[in-house]
């Protein structure tokens, strides 16, 4: 059971990290695209 607790809390934290990462990625996705488009335009 001690093993289960150690693994559970790790998965719990990583799951929150993944959720947060994809939210940030989604929110700034348009900006990344804009940046690439700007660079394409400059060329």
């Amino acid at each position: 059971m001690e093993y289960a607790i150690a693994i559970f809390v790790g998965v719990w934290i990583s799951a929150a990290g993944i959720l947060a990462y994809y939210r940030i990625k989604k929110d700034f996705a348009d900006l990344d695209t804009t940046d690439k488009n700007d660079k394409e335009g400059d060329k």
Partner: protein
Amino acid sequence: MNVFLIGMIISMIAYIIIGFLIGKGVKNTNDFFVAGRRAPTFLLVGSLVASYCGTGLYFGDAGESFAGIFSPLMTLGAMLIIGYVLGGVFFGRFLRRSECNTIPEFFGKRYNSPALKKLAAVTQLVTIIVYLLSTIQGIGTLMSLVTGLDYKLCIILALITFSVLTVSSGSKGVLITDTIMFGLFTIVTVVVIIICTVKGGGWFNIVEGLAQTKPEILSWAGDPDYLYPTGTQNMIWAFAYGIVWMSVCMVAPWQASRYLMAKNEHSVIRSSIWAAFFVFVLEFIVKCGAALLNHFSPELADQSHIIIWASTTLVPTVLGVVMVTGILAAGISSATTFLSIIGTSVVNDFLDIKDERKKLTTVRITVIIAAAIVMLLAYFNPPQVFWIMFLGATVVACSWLPVCIASIWSKRVTKTGAFCGMLFGFLGCGGMKIYASVAELDLPVFLDPFFIGLAANLIGMLVGTLLTKVTPEEKKQREALFVIPEAEKDIKEITKTKKTVLASVILGAVVTGILLVFWVIPYTSSL
């Protein structure tokens, strides 16, 4: 004169001097309320961790871990850190974007509801005063224990210190002194616990020895004679309070309000990830360290004194003095945050003062009055650091969490829904707690005030929302929160922020690794 008393007096004088020096730079209410909104990541990390880690950790959590519920408390301690990760990304940066001075002001603006603002401010004041009471009791206990001075005199000395610090420098001073204190108590805690375990024959030897002599101390179930009679009930309690404390780290006024001071939204997100890391380190080292101190079988008048006992008995005197001043710093840093929030909230959320100078004077008077009220409460109530701290946390979780999430992520929840949710959650949780105390009931774990309060909040929010409709103004305010400011669109900053958030995914593996290597494997292999 007692060497611990000298150390404490020197540190308190140092904090007051720093407060006065910083106070010279406080020119207006913007400086006092939100530190000019210029705080970089490291100051936010320092303040987040220092506000979280008060005397509750060093007395309450350490004492309970020592006494028999290490495993439930460690589970809870690891679960709660996601409150920072989720809080920064899903709430804190939007709060910063609102450019409000307080979280109640944010609720009022978001839902276009002065009534909700007032209700949030009342719930905030009540929970902070409760939490501040726990902190001041911890500081009083610490000072009287190591110096031999009267407990009540110690409370007065401590209150004078953090009242002067808060009145002179406001949020700006609190941010800087919090960070200094965070550095001090983090480093000294790690060093002291390492020295204590070396003195006991080494970390792994102690774990293996306890597995043989007192297996219940490090067992997943905890001591069945302590909190609940079965391991399953202890773990249900741990999961419930893991969510309570996650809510605290996510939205509690003494945590989320730090984000209002950030220089930008990237600092909000990055500081939240770093805070998660440091809080886990402190949670692990204090709770596991306290449990391992069972190896020495100390005779204590109160289990909550275990870290103080170790600091005054097992380590060299100089280091013991630094440790004690470090714990004092943890308490003072939390208390200054609470007091500055009380002062800011009263002036910003209840009073309508236009004149800047009058506002500053009023906020300072409010801080002094709040300190006096807490002093009276602490004077007449016996120390119950752990349970009072848990009461404050539970009330915050029940009254604020669903409303905070809905304020950003729900298009449907109306101002009436938000108001009813917050009110019912507050009354449901507080009412259940008071009823259980007055009737002297031992409630089963599923009737814990947390479950009752959270259910009441969700029901209130649902009913209030079903009976009313979202107004155009509410819709407009929510849409405005999703417009990313131009200043935040720096590609370098975005990349750096993304990398930091990605590190939180790895943090999960690191936490599992630490628990396996330092607790689970040596313990289970020695049973």
